[in-house]
């Protein structure tokens, strides 16, 4: 359709001024946008309050869709399961036997651990979750990967706290509203989690790539000890994540590490637990400038 009005809007002064004001406002909008963008890139938490308010008001409507999302994933998986039922059955039975053995071994290890910890008088406790809540959704069209959960400052959630699902780590809280918060997902390109190989002591960083995969960067470069299917768990370095939570599974080996998939895919996550910081003192000490003493 052609534009209804002519470029030069008649001889009416009022119409001419109206058009002119429109352009002035539009350019002012561009400038204000530029300014706000600069401010929020410099200090990302400047508009947290406004955004929290908007998110809190949307969260209740979003909660029911959580169920639909995770169930629709289940339906697809069910159909796929029929194709490979027989061979899978045999394979699973074998894996089950092995898993039972490993479980017994793990129990023994756990006992030994408890005994050794008691010996060292070291109690680092599991830490009861701060809140258990819905995983509402994630930013769907932005290039950043943020998730939203249905618990906020009112439930005792603070920025920095780790978020996990029954499968493994989902991410870390970056912003809290009153009843909902924003979570930096593992796959965001700003997310960096210290991890270690579950079967051996190999330390690495799990770094989001922004396209759903995670890059594993080994700290000690040398012979790459990784294999396809290796599981990485949190190492506890940095003090945010409790050690031993599943993070990612290696899918492809690269020169300096590997590419990995998240164990806990946000699309298949319905309920998550917000955990307390593992070692708040360490984090506080790390955040204090070196000239100052670490006080209360």
């Amino acid at each position, binding site marked *: *359709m*052609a*534009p*209804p*009005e002519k*470029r030069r809007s008649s001889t009416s002064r009022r119409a001419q001024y109206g058009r002119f004001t*429109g*352009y002035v*406002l*539009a*350019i*002012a*909008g*561009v400038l*204000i*946008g530029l*300014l*706000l*963008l*600069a*401010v*929020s890139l410099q200090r*990302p938490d*400047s*508009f947290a309050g*406004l*955004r929290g308010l*908007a*998110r809190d008001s*949307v969260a209740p409507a*979003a909660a029911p*869709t959580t169920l639909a*999302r995770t169930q629709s994933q289940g339906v697809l998986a069910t159909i796929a399961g029929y194709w490979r039922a027989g061979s899978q059955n045999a394979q699973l039975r074998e894996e089950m036997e092995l898993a039972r053995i490993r479980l017994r071994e793990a129990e023994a290890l756990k006992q030994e651990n408890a005994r050794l910890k008691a010996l060292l008088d070291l109690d680092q406790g599991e830490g009861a979750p701060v809140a258990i809540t819905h995983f*509402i*959704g*994630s*930013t*769907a*069209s*932005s*290039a*950043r*990967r*943020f*998730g*939203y959960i249905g618990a906020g400052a009112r439930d005792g959630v603070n920025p920095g706290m780790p978020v996990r699902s029954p499968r493994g780590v989902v991410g870390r809280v970056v912003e809290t509203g009153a009843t909902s918060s*924003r979570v930096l997902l593992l*796959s*965001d*390109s*700003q997310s960096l989690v210290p991890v270690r190989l579950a079967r051996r002591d190999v330390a690495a960083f799990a770094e989001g*790539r*922004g*396209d*759903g995969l995670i890059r594993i960067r080994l700290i000690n470069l040398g012979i790459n000890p990784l294999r396809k299917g290796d599981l990485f768990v949190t190492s506890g370095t940095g003090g945010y994540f409790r050690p031993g939570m599943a993070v990612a599974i290696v899918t492809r080996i690269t020169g300096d590490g590997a590419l990995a998939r*998240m164990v806990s*895919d*946000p*699309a298949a*996550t319905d309920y998550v637990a917000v955990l307390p910081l593992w070692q708040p003192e360490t984090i506080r000490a790390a955040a204090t400038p070196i000239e100052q003493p670490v006080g209360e």
Partner: protein
Amino acid sequence: MEKLNPQARRDRYGSKINRTHSPSLAGGLPWASVMVASLVQILPLAAAVPVMPPLGFIVLLCWRLVRPGLLPVWAGFPLGLFDDLLSGQPFGSAILLWSLALLVIEVIEVRLPWREFLLDWLLAAAILAVYLMAAALVSGGRMTAPLLLALLPQLLLSVLVYPIIARMVAWLDRLRLMRFRTVD
């Protein structure tokens, strides 16, 4: 009269007797539809990759291209502000990019006042490509090759969804002028 032609006192917006357009609907529907589209993008999905087209922006583009002269040039500011609250992008990115897009369309309209649908689609595709790249650039994340590759499916989806949304906007435009209000 009705015996000769039952449609005589009706047009596509309903009966003309005792009925008139509702001003709030006629003026507010474009704004409301863009805001609802901005809301949609955070509601139902949680994904590891950005796949969802930027629906708020596409609806705004459609209103501007399908029905020029309805939304003012400065509409990018308030609508972008609303989108920024929900999109997870740094605050201000939609305000900036949406305002710029509307100004760019204004400039193009001077050159090409008469456009057919294909040209509109091409224009929207070009604007969407630039928009998605720019939005990723100002998102504050590190730009890596895989991240840019991951934008491609989203761009393709956005371009393909444009004709559908353009039809929906045309339908909303008819709904906008329905004679709902009774005149006493």
